[in-house]
């Protein structure tokens, strides 16, 4: 499905990013595994990908730093020769009620989750424009559509990502670069493990399919959006949330 394609997945050392990196590799893509701090975990993902018979490399970069991202994209394109797929997945949370949220908590989340998408997209755009093809898939969140108490920063960033997806899709369409977003709901990862049982049960009540999603559920939609099967889809946000927000 993705034989010979080269992909870069940000925040790919664990959670949804890891599942996406592995799924793209399973379909034949070579994958660059970006990480910010978890080098050991990134190395494990690289080794798992290599077992699938495709190329993999790990690349350290804080997505909120333009200089680090530029260096990363340069390294990936020189190793792989081209860059066909970018998955903007890296994200952090600093949850707090708005009245208690510190400016610093707001800024950190916006910098990584929103500005990081801008920086990474800009950094790969030159290569993709030259190729006259490319796929950019942004991992947003269902809370960016519906809102969520305690996550003003995260929600603002994710809603911003959905808006940026639409603009980027329009700007790049003439160069055959397709840009879409996925909006995962309640997916079982380290990030959602931090929630209390009470919060979890509250969320389950809101999900028509009455269960958590798995990282693979998200990864398979990303794989579809990265493939030729999605040739006529751009600027969209696909909800992967068990029907939570319709």
């Amino acid at each position, binding site marked *: 499905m993705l034989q010979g394609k080269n992909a870069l997945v940000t925040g790919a050392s664990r959670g949804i990013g890891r599942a996406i990196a592995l799924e793209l590799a399973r379909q034949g893509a070579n994958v660059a595994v970006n990480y910010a701090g978890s080098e050991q975990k990134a190395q494990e993902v690289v080794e798992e990908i290599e077992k699938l018979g495709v190329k993999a490399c790990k690349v350290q970069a804080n997505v909120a730093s333009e200089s680090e991202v530029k260096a990363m994209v340069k390294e990936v394109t020189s190793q792989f020769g081209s860059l066909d797929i970018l998955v903007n997945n890296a994200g952090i949370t600093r949850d707090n009620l708005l009245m208690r949220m510190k400016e610093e908590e707001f800024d950190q989340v916006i910098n990584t989750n929103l500005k990081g998408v801008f920086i990474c997209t800009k950094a790969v755009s030159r290569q993709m*424009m*030259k190729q006259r093809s490319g796929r950019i898939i942004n991992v947003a969140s269902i809370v960016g559509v519906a809102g969520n108490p305690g996550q003003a920063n995260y929600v603002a960033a994710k809603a911003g990502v959905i808006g940026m997806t639409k603009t980027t899709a329009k*700007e790049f369409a*003439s160069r055959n670069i397709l840009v879409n977003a996925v909006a995962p709901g309640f997916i079982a990862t380290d990030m959602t493990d931090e929630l209390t049982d009470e919060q979890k049960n509250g969320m389950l009540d809101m999900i028509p399919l009455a269960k958590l999603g798995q990282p693979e559920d998200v990864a398979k939609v990303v794989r579809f959006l990265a493939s030729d099967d999605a040739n006529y889809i751009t600027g969209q946000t696909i909800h992967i949330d068990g029907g939570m927000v319709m």
Partner: protein
Amino acid sequence: MMADVFDRVKAIIVDRLDVEEDKITLEASFKDDLEADSLDVVELVMELEDEFDMEIADEEAENINTVGDAVNYINSKQS
């Protein structure tokens, strides 16, 4: 020197914008005379950077409106 840069710029424009070579004068505006949209201009600047092995800062790229602007800019950086 001037002619050499002009010819190389011209070749890139012909290739990228698919316009007749005789329309490409130093006075020609990319957007008004050569039918480039803003993304085309960004791409042309990228190509020029590669062709002449230089980096053109975004602020400077914004001042490149005509073929002559591009040629002059490149000449000023190469001298």
